[in-house]
């Protein structure tokens, strides 16, 4: 199929590049964070793109994952791999709980409700000091490097784990989109009432998407905890640092498409890093400002994301090639 070559090339590049970068260095950290955010944006894409529910509170699941695996590690010595699945389960459960009251809400209302949930989780994490360490945050304890303990001396394994996560989440996204579930979600997106009439159980479908998205997001929280080693409620439950960012990445890249979050992440995060590197000491806030301007420009100019531009480019090129 025509679409195969790009993903294959990407995977080959993504596997080779970490080998070329300094394993203790800065760019491999940027790559790891980029891959991680691409995966997070892809998880968000499942509800934001396929179910068309703009969630501004996905940090709720992310933080649940990060805290679950780290607390289990600190209190019971459980390996973060197992903690990750525990976090995933809790994240899925949280998504279920959140989805029920918000299911029927439209567009802006849904966004506001999810925003509130994210903040509720942040406040709880801040207040429940005995469990979460409160505002002081948690440090992932240093254990001797081993795969089973999810502890590595260098950043390179983290980059590969992030890559694997991105691939897994993307495969799940594609499976949903192309499968019967995707067909149902599209139907609901077009016209929820008509979908009900033809027998689609909209509640069950939306819940399904929400739970998968939440569970995946939570598992990525564990990956983050292991890379960043230290975090606090503001970092993992943050509106600006997580919730808005992942949605933004998916949107700029192209919401609802598999390549969108990946494109978005590879554009936004390295760009932000470069700008911070060039500008941050000279004028605080300038890099963020430029970033905001770019966001506005992209929304006005290509609201369906970069992927639309690339698709139409490909269409134009293939038209040119036709006899």
């Amino acid at each position, binding site marked *: 199929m025509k679409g195969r070559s790009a993903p294959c090339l990407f995977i080959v590049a993504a596997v080779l590049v970490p080998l070329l970068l300094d394993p203790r260095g800065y*760019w491999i950290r940027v790559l790891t964070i980029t891959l991680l955010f691409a995966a997070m944006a892809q998880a968000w894409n499942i509800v934001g793109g396929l179910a068309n529910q703009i969630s501004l509170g996905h940090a709720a699941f992310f933080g649940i994952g990060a805290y679950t695996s780290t607390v289990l590690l600190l209190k019971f010595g459980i390996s973060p791999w197992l903690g990750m699945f525990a976090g995933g389960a809790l994240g899925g459960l949280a998504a279920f709980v959140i989805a029920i009251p918000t299911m029927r809400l439209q567009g802006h209302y849904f966004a506001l409700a999810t925003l509130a949930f994210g903040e509720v989780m942040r406040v709880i994490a801040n207040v429940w000091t005995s469990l979460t360490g409160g505002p002081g945050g948690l440090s992932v304890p240093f254990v001797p490097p081993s795969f089973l303990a999810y502890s590595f001396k260098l950043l390179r394994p983290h980059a590969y784990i992030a890559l694997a996560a991105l691939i897994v989440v993307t495969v799940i996204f594609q499976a949903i989109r192309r499968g019967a579930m995707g067909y149902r979600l599209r139907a609901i997106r077009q016209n929820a009432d008509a979908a009900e009439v033809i027998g689609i159980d909209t509640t069950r479908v939306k819940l399904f998407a929400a739970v998968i998205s939440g569970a995946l997001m939570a598992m990525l929280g564990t990956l983050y905890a292991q890379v960043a080693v230290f975090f606090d409620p503001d970092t993992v439950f943050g509106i600006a*640092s997580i919730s808005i960012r992942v949605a933004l990445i998916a949107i700029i890249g192209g919401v609802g498409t598999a390549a969108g979050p990946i494109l978005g992440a590879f554009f936004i995060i390295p*760009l932000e890093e470069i700008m911070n590197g060039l500008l941050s000491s000279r004028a605080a806030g300038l890099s963020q400002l430029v970033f905001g301007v770019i966001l506005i420009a992209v929304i006005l100019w290509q609201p369906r994301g970069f992927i639309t531009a690339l698709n139409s480019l490909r269409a134009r090129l293939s038209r040119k090639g036709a006899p």
Partner: protein
Amino acid sequence: MPGSNSQGKVFLDRRAVLLGTAACLAAPYVISSARAATPAVNVGVIMPLSGPNAQFGINSRNGVELVADEINSAGGIAELGGAKINLVVADATSTPTTAGTTAQRLIAQQDITAVLGAFASSLTLAISEVTERRDIPLLTMSFADQITGRGYRNIFQVVAKASVIGKAQFEYTAAIAQAAGAKIEKIAIMYEDTAYGTAQANGLRAGAKAANVEVVMDDAYPLGITDTTPLINKLRVSGAQAVFPVSYLSDSLLIIRTMRQQRVTIPAIGGAAGYVIPDFEKGLGEFAENVLSIDTSNYDLAPELTDRFRKRFGYFMVHEALEHAVCLEIVVQAIKKAKSAKAEEVAAALRGAKFTGGWVNGMTGGAVQFDQTGLNVLSVPLMVQWRGKDIVTVWPKEIAKSAPVWRS
């Protein structure tokens, strides 16, 4: 419909994407080739230059700049052939992850001898995760207990721990009250629910417990609170004889003003941060007079040094500026001792060592001595009091510049 497929727009789009990607890929080469071969000593300065702590970050940077400029204009570091200090300043922002990435970037882009930063404990903790693994010494005045509590070998904290500061905040108050003939039996604690506020409140509680004093009100409040009336209402009916607020600036102003409005006249003893910066007096005018606060250092202990700051920047040398100045001084002294600017060797020269002279005179005891956890064991908190537009050290008696005024 915006962005519809007119030819020109699509082309521009593709070019922008390609150029952007090319820039991303080329950047590391561009940046690393800028790694010049000048014999300068690179010291990383990572402070919050944006976000709610920006003011403190800027103050800190100013303190470091003052010392760096003094050393450079005096001919640089003689032991290294007159090498100048090159400050590599970066914004830690308000997110710990970004602070960590910033540290990583600094370390990757040039040979860093040491890092100074980052005022807020959460930022410092994140940076320390990076510097510890790269064997680069990090010097800080952040005081969360965790900073020196992880067994790290490359972290050096020049002030006392939060729990000690909190305890002193209470104990000094009790002593001052006693010296004025008043006895404190009931106190109120109110603090922001940040790492700083919570840590210091723990210390306050411990101090009160040890003295068998009842804490009749113990409330955390959300950072960014916009209305403190409920807090003060509660304070008024609690029967406390003294209140210990731990806050940054906007809440400190709110608290004092609301206390005034509600005619709550019990003494307020602040927990540093917002209570010891010029803006506190600017915001309150006459109502700042005689407000007490705990502090980790004060400019009146070494006016011959700190007046230079006031002359250059126009405001008194706030404690974070002074403490970071001391950090840079110590780094330079360690470089001289090790006769090298290599991070590992400087770190070795810092570990467990004692420093005196120069800007170190600004710290309590006129010296800094690090123990194996990296904590400066000679740093003693002090109590300051507002007199006009200045804050004056009033306790402990041995270092006080003036007797405390206790209005109860």
